[in-house]
């Protein structure tokens, strides 16, 4: 059976990731609604160039 390749995460670059529950309060915050709306519009209509 082929072993699943571990994908590189922050630890591969020596960067520590510390979980902080205080960031959870931002869970549903959209900081830039206009930009998000624009991004949604763009990605909703993405066509692959052939």
């Amino acid at each position, binding site marked *: 059976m082929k072993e699943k*390749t571990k*994908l*590189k*995460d*922050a630890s*591969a*670059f*020596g*960067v*520590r*990731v*510390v*979980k*902080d*529950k205080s*960031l*959870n309060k*931002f*869970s549903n915050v*959209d*900081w*830039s609604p206009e*930009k*998000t709306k624009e*991004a*949604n519009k*763009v*990605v*909703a*209509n*993405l*066509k*692959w*160039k052939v």
Partner: protein
Amino acid sequence: MKLERYESLVASDDGLKFTFNSIGPKGRICKWIQFQKMNDSTIYYLSFGNLLSDGNVDHYTKDDNKDRNKILATVAVAIYEFTARNPDKLVFFTGSTDGRTRLYRMALTIYFQALSLDFDIYGVYIMEDDHLIEPFEKGKDYYGFAVKIKIN
């Protein structure tokens, strides 16, 4: 790819939000990175800015804290961290200004060889009413960019 980066990222439990401190002549500036699910749930929008003391995020201020490359390299690490946990997702990003979009294009161009070992890299451009996505080409103007981790 030997780049200077900030050594730690603070993450939310869901792994969609990150902060880190930019440290330079202007002092300590808290940077905010967010991966936001789009209506098409296979695509996440990467937004980036300064987390302000009132809890808002400023996407436009130019800090001039003399650590631009270190910041970009740290954001790249956050993308690795996100895609390691969400390998099937496409990460889309664009600059909050034309200048920042050019900066991202420049960074992708400079580090294309190294990044393309790990990511499929795409450019997004607008033609009339269509939004087209294609493999990233150096020297071409794009509206935005997208990356997807390569799974070997």
